[in-house]
């Protein structure tokens, strides 16, 4: 299982993840790039802040990625999640999955981001012009 997981305060560059998973054996790379939207539910977002509980977040990401390797024939996976303050348009998450055949790549990449959002202890605070809120905390 050839993968790398990174939780970092530094800006994420999708091309770096794509290069990192590209191998002469892979024919397809599927990439998911999350970006900070300027609005949610019609409310204008000015800034985001991400906080992670390490090393639990890394441990949970390892579980997800290893599960993906068991479920699909993958070649290389990179998952990078950013922490700290992000401006609109910045990238909180990049997932790159290299496979010999593309279908597995689409499925595994979607599985990883879907499960990441459900289980990995990372929290997002949205800041608006008139306040802030921890996303998903309350009904």
């Amino acid at each position, binding site marked *: 299982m050839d993968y790398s997981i990174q939780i970092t305060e530094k800006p994420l560059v999708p091309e770096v993840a794509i290069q990192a998973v590209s191998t002469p054996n892979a024919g397809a790379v599927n990439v998911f790039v*999350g970006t900070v939207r300027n609005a949610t539910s019609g409310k204008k977002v000015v800034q985001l802040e*991400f*906080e*992670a*509980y390490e*090393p*639990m*977040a890394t*441990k949970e990401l390892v579980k997800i990625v290893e599960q993906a390797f068991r479920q699909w024939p993958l070649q290389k996976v990179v998952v990078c*999640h950013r922490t700290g303050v992000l401006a609109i348009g910045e990238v*909180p*998450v990049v997932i790159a999955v290299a496979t010999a055949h593309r279908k597995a790549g689409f499925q595994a990449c979607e599985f990883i*981001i879907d499960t*990441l*959002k*459900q*289980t*990995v*202890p*990372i*929290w*997002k*605070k949205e800041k608006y012009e008139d306040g802030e809120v*921890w*996303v*998903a*905390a*309350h*009904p």
Partner: protein
Amino acid sequence: MIAIKLFGVMRDIVGKPMLDIDEQVTTVAALKEVVEQKYPKAKALNSLLVAVNSEYAADEQTITATDEVALIPPVSGG
């Protein structure tokens, strides 16, 4: 005493990054009960899980003073 790590909205509710629980709690369920009694706002969350030694822990799991314990409010990464 159990020292509990706090994140996200739980840190805001408690007002600090660590919470010391002096009460005699030996399980995850008991810990959650104590926290929700001390901080009623914790009950209003979509969910509140407990991690023991950086793994999600079931209600019946036991906790000792040497464990690393954390409260996990609803996650929202990605």
